[in-house]
């Protein structure tokens, strides 16, 4: 696994986890949204935490697409689950939430799965070339 793969895997996991935690932090400022006053949910966009969360999730989508452009889906998918690990750690130390033993076991299993898949090849070589002529249009 080279430095580029580590970087993109880290970006997927961190942006996904941090995005979720920041959205949660932003919604804590907003408070409970009742169905009778659903418009109240838009005040979330005034919170800098929510804006940061959305930026993180946009970064996650960009990193995810970048990884999919040179790696198999079955290689990239565990990285998205690694985001849950980041969420669990940030929830404990940043939001001061209680994480049960079951959750830590889940974190351990996901980490083991990611460790296992990243030790193998990242892409299945097939004979389908990328669409060259459309790439030339960009030039």
């Amino acid at each position: 696994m080279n430095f580029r793969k580590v970087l993109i895997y880290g970006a997927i996991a961190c942006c996904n986890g941090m995005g979720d935690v920041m959205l949660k932090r932003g919604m804590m400022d907003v408070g409970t949204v009742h169905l009778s006053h659903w418009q109240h949910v838009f005040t979330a966009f005034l919170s800098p935490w929510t804006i940061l969360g959305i930026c993180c999730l946009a970064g996650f989508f960009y990193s995810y697409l970048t990884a999919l452009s040179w790696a198999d889906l079955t290689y990239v998918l565990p990285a998205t689950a690694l985001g849950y690990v980041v969420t669990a750690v940030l929830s404990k130390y940043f939001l001061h939430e209680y994480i049960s033993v079951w959750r830590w076991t889940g974190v351990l299993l996901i980490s083991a799965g990611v460790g296992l898949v990243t030790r193998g090849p990242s892409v299945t070589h097939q004979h389908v070339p990328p669409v060259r002529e459309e790439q030339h249009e960009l030039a």
Partner: protein
Amino acid sequence: MNAVRLWTAIGVLVLSSSTGDVLLSAAMKRVGDMDALRRRHGLFAVIARVIREKYFLSGLVCLIFSFFCLLTALSWGEVSLVAPASASLTYICSVLLAKFFLKENVDHRRWIAAALVCVGVALLAK
């Protein structure tokens, strides 16, 4: 009856989410290495290239549809069941679809990893 309705919603959610992932993956393989494209042509040209890809748009539609299925399933069942069940089943379904439609080489290592991630995600909701 309610259980059947709930599991149907979860099933549709899992299928649409996995199909979305597979279509995005197929689209990005057709686009080619995004890093290399960005270095050569810039970020906006890459975005323009990606959104012109029909598989990308179909994948996006599937993911948006799966989001509404998630909301529907959440309105019919408890979050402690819907979230882990849909997330972990989506992993297994995506691996199956990637193997048969994208012809990815899913060896023992990737199957074990998918199973570990699937159980791990389910445990996170406990």
